[in-house]
C-alpha cells in the first residue's frame, strides 16, 4: 500500500462514495474544476460529471440551505465550507434547520448530509483562515460532529459520515491534510463516534482530537524520554462523546489534560474536563487541565506559533498535575492501562 495524504484519503472517500451511491452529490465553492482550495475534491467533476460534483454560487447559507432541501428529496449532499470561519454565514441554517429537522418532523424527515469544514490553524493563513469552531457545533443538539486525525480515519470516517442518516459536521484538520499514512480503500476503522487510544501510558491521559493528536503523540514521546508514561486518546467523535473509552483511560492514569487549538474559554475542552471529572472524580489526582489557544482572536501567521498548543506547553501542563502530592508513584498505577513505565518525577 502506498502512503496517502489525508487530503487524498478524503478524496478517495468522496470518490468511492460517489461511485457506490448515486444519491451522493458534492458541491460548494471551487470544489468543481479546481478541486477545492485544498484539492480534496480533485478530479471528482472530471470523473463523475458536473451533475455530481459542482461549484455553486458563493453563499454559505445558500449552500447549506439548498443541501437541506436536497436531503429532503433523498440525496446525500456533501458540501464544503471553504475555511472554518466561512462557515459562520451558514450558522442559522446549521443550527435552526440542519440540526433540528429530524426532531421537528418527529423523525419523518431525516437529513443525511455532510458539512465538510477545514478547520484549525498552523498553515500560515491570514485572518479568518485558521479558526476552530468545533465548540459551536458540538453544543448544538442534532448534529454529529467528528474529526479525523489520520488518513485512514479520514477515509473511513468520511465514508461513514456520508452514509449516516444524521447530519454530520465533518471537521478536517487542515494542517494535517499533508500528513501521510496507510489507507486501504474500502476498509473501515473504528466507528466515527468512538474514541481510540493512540498510545498506552500509565501516568497521564492526553485527550486530543483532529490537529492536536499528532502534537499529543509528540508530547508523549518527549515525556517518555523523561520517564513519564503518557496515554493518548484521540476523540474522533466530538458529539456524541465516547464516555466509556475516555473515562476508562483517565481512571487508569488518574490525571488528564485536554488539548485543542480553539480558545480554552468555553471551548470544547471544558466539556471534556467537566464530564471526565464528573465520571472519574475519585480517580483524579489533580484537576483535568486544558491546553489550547489563548482567549484571543486567532493571531496573524507570524504569531500563530505562540498561540497553538505545542509540546512544551503540554509538557508544562503535565508538570502542573500535582505530582508532588501523589501517594503512588508512576508505574505503580499501571494495572489499568498498558505497560508500566519507569518511575520518574516531572519537574514541579
Amino acid at each position, binding site marked *: 500500500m502506498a502512503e496517502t495524504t489525508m487530503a487524498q484519503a478524503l478524496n478517495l472517500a468522496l470518490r468511492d462514495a460517489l461511485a457506490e451511491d448515486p444519491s451522493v452529490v458534492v458541491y460548494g465553492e471551487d470544489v468543481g*474544476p479546481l478541486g477545492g482550495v485544498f484539492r480534496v475534491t480533485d478530479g471528482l467533476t472530471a470523473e463523475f460529471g458536473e*451533475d455530481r460534483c459542482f461549484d*455553486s*454560487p458563493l*453563499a454559505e*447559507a*445558500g449552500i*447549506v*440551505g*439548498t*443541501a*437541506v*432541501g*436536497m*436531503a*429532503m*428529496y*433523498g*440525496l446525500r*449532499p456533501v458540501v464544503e465550507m471553504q475555511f472554518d470561519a466561512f462557515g459562520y*454565514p451558514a450558522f*442559522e*441554517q446549521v443550527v*435552526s*434547520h440542519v440540526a*433540528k*429537522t*429530524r*426532531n*421537528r*418532523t*418527529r*423523525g*419523518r*424527515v*431525516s437529513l443525511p448530509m455532510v458539512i465538510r469544514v477545514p478547520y484549525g490553524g498552523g498553515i500560515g493563513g491570514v485572518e479568518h483562515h485558521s479558526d476552530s469552531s468545533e465548540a459551536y457545533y458540538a453544543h448544538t*443538539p*442534532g448534529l*454529529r460532529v467528528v474529526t479525523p486525525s489520520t488518513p485512514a480515519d479520514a477515509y473511513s470516517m468520511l465514508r461513514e459520515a456520508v452514509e*449516516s*442518516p*444524521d447530519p454530520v459536521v465533518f471537521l478536517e484538520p487542515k494542517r494535517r491534510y499533508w500528513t501521510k499514512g496507510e489507507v486501504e480503500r474500502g476498509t473501515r476503522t473504528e466507528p466515527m*463516534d468512538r474514541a481510540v487510544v493512540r498510545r498506552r501510558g500509565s501516568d497521564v491521559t492526553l485527550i486530543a482530537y483532529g490537529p492536536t493528536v499528532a502534537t499529543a503523540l509528540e508530547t508523549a514521546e518527549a515525556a517518555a524520554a523523561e520517564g513519564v508514561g503518557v496515554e493518548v486518546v484521540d476523540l474522533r467523535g466530538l458529539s*456524541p*462523546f465516547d*464516555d*466509556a473509552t475516555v473515562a476508562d483511560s483517565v481512571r487508569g492514569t488518574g490525571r488528564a489534560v485536554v488539548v485543542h487549538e480553539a480558545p480554552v474559554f468555553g471551548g470544547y475542552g471544558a466539556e471534556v474536563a467537566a464530564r471526565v471529572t464528573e465520571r472519574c472524580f475519585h480517580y483524579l489526582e489533580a484537576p483535568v487541565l486544558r491546553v489550547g489557544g489563548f482567549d484571543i482572536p486567532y493571531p496573524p501567521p507570524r504569531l500563530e506559533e505562540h498561540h497553538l498548543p505545542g509540546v512544551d506547553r503540554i509538557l508544562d501542563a503535565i508538570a502542573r498535575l500535582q505530582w508532588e502530592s501523589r501517594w503512588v508513584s508512576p508505574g505503580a498505577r499501571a494495572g489499568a492501562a498498558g505497560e508500566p513505565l519507569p518511575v520518574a518525577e516531572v519537574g514541579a
Partner: protein
Amino acid sequence: MERTDDRPDQASPPLPSLEPIRLVDQRGRRVDDPVHHSPDHAVLLRLLRGMVVGRRFDRQAGALARQGRLAVYPSSFGQEACQVGGVLAMRADDWLFPTYRDSVALVTRGVDPVGVLTLLRGDWHSGYDPNRYRCAPQCTPLATNAPHAVGLAHAARRAGSDLAALVMMGDGATSEGDAHEAYNFAAVWNAPVVFLVQNNQWAISVPVRKQSRAPTLAHKAIGYGMRGHHVDGNDAAAVYAVVSRALADARAGRGPAIVEARTYRMDPHTNSDAPQRYRDDAEVERWRARDPVDRLTALLRAEGRLDDAALAGFTQEGEELAADLRERMADEDAPDPDELFAHVLAAPTAQLTEQRAALRDEVRKEAGHG
C-alpha cells in the same frame, strides 16, 4: 472550460407591472389582462370554496388562541386569495414550503387541520408528515425555507421529475440574506421554484416601505435574471392564474420566478400583537372593502354561477371543519416527555438514553407526589 466575455449575452426579463395583475376588480367585475386568462368557473368555485372553508378554519383557530388552547396564532385573515390561489395552482406532486402564517394554505392543501395547529398549540414543532402532503414544516425563521425549496426542486429536476416547489414568504422576509441566496441559487440552477411573496404590507409593526424601496417586491426578480410578477393578492383568480403560469414555466425549464401578491393582514400579527400601536383602523377598513371572498362571490353571483345553496354548502363545510377542530383540539392529552429524546438523532445515543431515564424518574417522582 468556462469562458467569460465582456458583454452580457442576454437582456433583462421585462419589468413587473406597477399596477398589479388583476382579473377581478374590487367590486367583482372582470378585468382583462393581456397575458393571463381567468380560470374557468369550476376553478373559480374551487377557489371560493377554499377561501370560505379556509377562513372558517382561520376564525376557529383565532378563537382557540383566545381561549388559550393555542400558544399563539398568526392569522391568515385577508390573505385567503394568496394562500388558496397559490395552493390550488399546484400539482399534487409539487412541494409547498409554508411559513407560520400559512395555515389556510396547508388546510387547502389537505393537511389535517389538527396537524396544521400542532406547532401553534405547542404539542410539537410540526404536526404532519411532510412527505405525505408534500408540505415542508411551517417555517418560523424568516426566509430560511426558501433555499430548502430550491435544493429540493433542483434535486427533483436532476432526477428527471418535473415537480415544482412553491415557497411562501412575507414581505419582511424578503429583506433577509437567505431570501437573496435562495433567489440566486434558483436562478443560477434554473430550479423549478416559484417564490410567492405575500406582501401583506406589514412585518409585525414595520410597514413594507421600511422594508424596501423597490417599486414592487417583484422587481427584485430582475437582479437575478428571473421573472417577477406583481399580482393583486386579494384577487384569487389572478393569483391562481399567475402562480399557475409561473409554476408551468418553472417546470418547463423556463426558470424560477418571484410572484408578489399585494394583500393585507387584516388581523394583528398574532393574537398577542397590539396593532393599535402602529397602524390606523382606517387602513384596515380600506382593505376590508377589497375582501377576497366578497370579491369572488360577487363575480360568481353576477355571472350566475353561485346560488345561495352552493354558498351555503361551502359555509356548511367550513362549519363542519370548525366543529371537528374544536372537538379534537379539546382533547387535552399532554404530549409524552419520552418523545423529547426520540428524534434528536436517528438512533439513541448513550447520553440521550441516560437523560431519558433521568427524566422518566423525575416524572415518576412527581406523579408520586401529586
